[in-house]
């Protein structure tokens, strides 16, 4: 290795211990024989490395957390009535609905779609009819689970509106 390559390593990986042991040893051997490179290594260590080792780790004043906390509280208060949370809760509620509710809802959607497409030209109607037929067969094939006490005590708004 020539001095240019060694200089590069002194300014980076050798000084930082970020090169492999074999390369580290090669640089060390070069430094033992080359005064100029040895002087550079000393200068880098004294000027660009050691002063930072004496730097203190400084934490923020307590007032910073107080300001952050106040800002967070204000932000929570200003949030528009937790729209996302409501949506999340609604979706979680919807996922827990019993299967007959989904079946009924799907059937209603099919009926609405049928009504919307009723005025289409004959060719398009045939396509729509085929699709509707498939949907009806699918819904008919859905297994309806046996009624349980839980089904008899349906009380949420969504359940009441569907059943």
């Amino acid at each position: 290795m020539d001095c240019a390559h060694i200089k590069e390593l002194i300014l980076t990986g050798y000084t930082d211990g970020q090169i492999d042991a074999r390369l580290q040893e090669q640089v060390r051997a070069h430094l033992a024989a080359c005064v100029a490179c040895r002087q550079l290594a000393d200068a880098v260590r004294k000027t660009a490395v050691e002063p930072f080792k004496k730097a203190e780790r400084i934490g923020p004043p307590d007032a910073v957390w107080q300001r952050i906390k106040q800002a967070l509280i204000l932000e929570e208060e200003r949030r528009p009535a937790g729209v996302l949370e409501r949506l999340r809760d609604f979706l979680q509620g919807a996922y827990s609905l019993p299967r007959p509710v989904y079946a009924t809802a799907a059937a209603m959607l099919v009926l609405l779609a049928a009504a919307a497409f009723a005025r289409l030209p004959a060719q398009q109607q045939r396509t729509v009819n085929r699709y509707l037929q498939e949907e009806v067969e699918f819904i008919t094939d859905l297994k309806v689970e046996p009624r349980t006490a839980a089904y008899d005590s349906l009380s949420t708004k969504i359940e009441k509106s569907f059943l």
Partner: protein
Amino acid sequence: MQDIPRDILIRASRGNIEAFEHIYKAVSGFVYNVALRITNSSHDAEEVTQDVFMKVYRSLPGFQFRSSLRTWIYRITVNTALNSCKKAIKETSRRGDYDTAVRTQSAPETADARATQADHERAVASLLSALNPDQRACVVLREIEGFSYKQISEALKININTVRSRLKRARETLLASRKSEVG
């Protein structure tokens, strides 16, 4: 930086401020210290710290737990501090209140120790001020925070060769400024 339990992260992501305070206590030392070294201003470092934690709080609900929280916070911190630093350089010359911050927040036991520490801090501030913001961020993460090249590359989202190149340029600048001081 201390490890933060997953349940704390989940509670904080749901808006629990006590849980978020736990995160603050674990990482605020790193955030403030890096911000102070990069901006060279206690006022700006406080603003950066506040800004970083507001960003973390707002982003926590979308945090996927696939990436490391540490790396994520390192990146937000360095980017926010660099933006603050670059903005300040554009606006005005530095205000130089760094020494006050150091003196008020670190309290060595004797007057001599305090004086020596103040000298060290002045030297560090002076060295860092000779570097451009990108080099400064690399040097702070490497020399003061003890990051490996890989950790620096992840925190700054740059490749390892760029880390190496910035550190090299930074050290050449520091050597040149020392030479000009001496001779």
